[in-house]
């Protein structure tokens, strides 16, 4: 299956491992990723707070190029990118009077056909194929699926199931043999883009997420958003200082978890780029004595 691919800025910067793991995993699931040429910023967080036309035009341009490249579906792994791209499609359909100004702004016909896909929806739809190709089953491993705010909301852009009780990420986790835990904070806010400007708020919010996942017995958190990953992984040390616990809750991108189950190495999946070590988790998966050390060696190398 050939898919348009929109990495967005995060996947080329703070969330490089999201991009690496996705590209590494794709061929194993018979996915061909065709990056949108000359893509631009999706406009997340700043554009829609300042200028509505700009906030629609920026993603509309990328979508229009994607259509011109012949993509039926465009994969936007970052939750914020997904939200902006899907919003642009929705806004242009809901309000036809936007089409002319957007056309003027981007210098081409606004998009009308391409379907925006989140990574969660894509993998949930591929769950049967993933189940077939699992090499290292994560049998019984307890995983907390964290959606955050942008994957499920707003309702009209949601492609992960119910707004209040989505299940798509859990479906993927089940497909790799792991057990999704029942916990309370999977839709709460992690603090998002305030990671730099209001660190204290982010630490407070993300702390309750990590603690609730731990209380529910999770061995790891799984996310599908670079901002969530940043706050839960990078900020975990600060969280641990407050709570007095150890910063030992690994936070995986969904693609990394699927990659592990498909038998890919820590290096391929960019696990060394995390701040919270994933070595123990990976070692327990392979279930070998001394595996922890070799895994941590491998992970160190990359880091």
């Amino acid at each position, binding site marked *: 299956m050939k898919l348009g691919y929109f990495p967005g800025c995060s996947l080329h910067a703070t969330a490089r491992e999201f991009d690496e793991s996705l590209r590494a995993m794709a061929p194993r699931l018979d996915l061909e990723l065709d990056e949108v040429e000359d893509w631009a910023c999706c406009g997340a967080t700043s554009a829609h707070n300042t200028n509505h036309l700009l906030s629609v035009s920026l993603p509309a341009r990328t979508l229009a190029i994607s259509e011109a490249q012949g993509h039926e579906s465009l994969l936007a792994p970052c939750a914020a990118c997904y939200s902006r791209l899907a919003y642009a499609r929705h806004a242009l359909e809901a309000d036809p009077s936007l089409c002319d100004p957007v056309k003027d702004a981007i210098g081409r016909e606004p998009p009308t056909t391409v379907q925006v896909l989140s990574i969660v929806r894509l993998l949930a739809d591929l769950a049967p194929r993933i189940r077939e190709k699992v090499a290292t089953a994560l049998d019984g491993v307890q995983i907390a699926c964290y959606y955050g705010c942008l994957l499920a909301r707003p*309702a009209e852009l949601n492609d992960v199931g*119910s*707004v*209040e*009780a*989505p299940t798509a990420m859990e479906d993927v986790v089940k497909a790799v043999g792991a057990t999704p835990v029942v916990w*309370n904070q999977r839709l709460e806010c992690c603090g998002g883009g305030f990671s730099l400007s209001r660190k204290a708020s982010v630490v407070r919010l993300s702390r309750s997420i990590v603690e609730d996942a731990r209380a529910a017995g999770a061995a790891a958190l799984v996310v599908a958003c670079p901002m969530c990953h940043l706050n839960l992984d990078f900020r975990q040390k600060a969280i641990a200082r407050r709570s007095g616990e150890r910063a030992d809750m690994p936070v995986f991108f969904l693609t990394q978890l699927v990659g592990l189950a498909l038998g890919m190495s820590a290096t391929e999946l960019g696990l060394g780029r995390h701040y919270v070590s994933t070595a123990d988790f990976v070692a327990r998966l392979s279930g070998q004595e001394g595996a922890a050390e070799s895994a941590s060696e491998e992970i160190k190398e990359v880091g």
Partner: protein
Amino acid sequence: MARIGVFVCHCGENIGRTVDCAQVAEACGSFPGVVHSVDYKYMCSDPGQLQIKEAIKEKGLTGVVVAACSPHMHEKTFRKAAAAAGLNPFLCEMANIREHCSWIHEDRARATAKAIDLTRFIVEKVKRNQPLVPISIPVERRALVIGAGIAGIQAALDIADGGREVILVEKEPSIGGHMSQLSETFPTLDCSQCILTPRMVEAFQHPRIKLMTYSEVESLEGYIGNFAVTIRKKARSVDDELCNGCGDCQSACPVKKIPSEFDAGLGKRTAIYVPFPQAVPNIPVIDRERCTRFKAMRKGKKKEVCGRCLKACGREAIDFAQEDRLITEKVGAIVFATGYQLYSIGEEQPREHLSGYGEYGYGEIPDVIDGMQFERLASASGPTGGRIERPSDGKEPETVVFLQCVGSRDPQKGIDYCSKLCCMYIAKHTMLYRHKVHHGRAVVFYMDVRAGGKGYDEFVRRAVEEDGAEYVRGRVSRLYRAGDKVRVCGFDTLSGEPLEMDADMVVMATAIQPQPGIESLAQKLSVSYDKSGFINEAHPKLKPVETNTAGIYVAGACQAPRDIPDAVAMASAAASKVLGLFSNEELERDPCVAQVDETTCSGCFHCERVCPYGAVEHLEVRDRGGNLIKVIAKVNQGVCQGCGTCQATCPSKSVELLGFTDAQIFAAINSL
């Protein structure tokens, strides 16, 4: 040759101000066939009517046209006058020059010209009118009441006390409906069962009420005054003649852990059971889905298993071989009173447009219950004997949070309407709780309190001022488990602040919905319903208990959310309508119904497909030798409502609506 009389009315100033009535009368006098044309200030007055009567006699009129107000207003008046003078009433018609002319125009000259046109139109039609005789239909003076909750019981008792026989059908094993589950009732806090049980017994013992419990309406044929209803009497597996209700079978039954429907899932029952001790009739029924013996039979086991109830029964009343029976009864009128059910917050929904509450965990937290479950907890006959104990661990809850409008007024979940009773019963719940748990906190999250009704607002105030209920204006966004508590995340819109609190138990006032399956029953009865499944009344103000099908009436919560006083009032209203219908042996009907020309009908049955009332039947035409020649359409005059859809549809022009034939309508149109 037609001899038409035209009578133009001024209606005081109503018509006369804008229309020159004398000029209209003069112009009409020159129409071909018009032999008499006059105007008068008030045609509907006695002297006005006298003019019509005298003209009919003196001028030998063959038709009368009264140019005045809408026929809805006075057609009956003038037809009665015409009939008194010996003219067939259907030869008298009205031209509406008030609502259709004088009231809506200002220019006197043009309005007068239009009034002349409108009158000419009717004159041309009346020239071709045929005398018609009202259809009289015999009335089967027995009624069917569907649903034996408080509405059905009340309607049945009123009809039976009025001297007519009633068949009262209930799909559950006992009559009583939801009212029998309630603890106390607002706004008086009197015991629900104490006031209901005597009515149940009265219905059971009434010589003119035939009770059919554990039965459902299978199909309906016929029309007002002459319905034939087929009722499925489901197999109880217990002979109701032999059983004396001793209860030995229930004690013997080994399957004891079935969630009791009567206790809203909080209590347990056996596989052979009576729903509750005061059940009427006090005859058990075997739940074949859960009975060990029937389960084994379904799996194809030859050996007869269990059978302990059979051994325990001293009267040999247990009958495993009993089958459903279909019984057909003739009735003249029907009262639809199937009641309500509570909306489920779970993922599974009975109707496609509904969705549950994921944010409340789809009701998977055991200490989150609905209003009916709280009724059972508070009821002396309930699973806890009236002690307030929470379901998870049986502890007495110290803090109970009540959520109003769960489902109701939430278009996102598919329900736009207000369920009307919840404000009242939540206030009642806070009082019942505080009367039993004096140190407990009762916190209510509400959108606004709607307590319209006699003594209702006073009741809510009492809950707040005397019984200490804490009302928080705002919605709850999430519920989740926090240890052995339920974390309630909400928003106080009066202080403008988010609010989080831990509750020991949460009670949700879930929306009132019609019973599942009401749509298919309504279709069987040709009764219309709204998008939520509630039965439509014939007119929202003036015909609140009639349905769009003549002879079928509606009462109680199947029409809209209704509390007990409303349901009882509706039931009595429906009963009085039924008794009014039954006050005559024969029913007179407007003869303006469709008629099929047997010689030209080709039997294509387009008319049957378009008829909204199911009035078209098949008629076999045979020669003298009894050989079938053709099958053609025949209109049942009792069912036909005279809408004319068949007439417009018939490709061979073989259907005519009497009083509105093509010849009449085309002649009228051609006159313009």
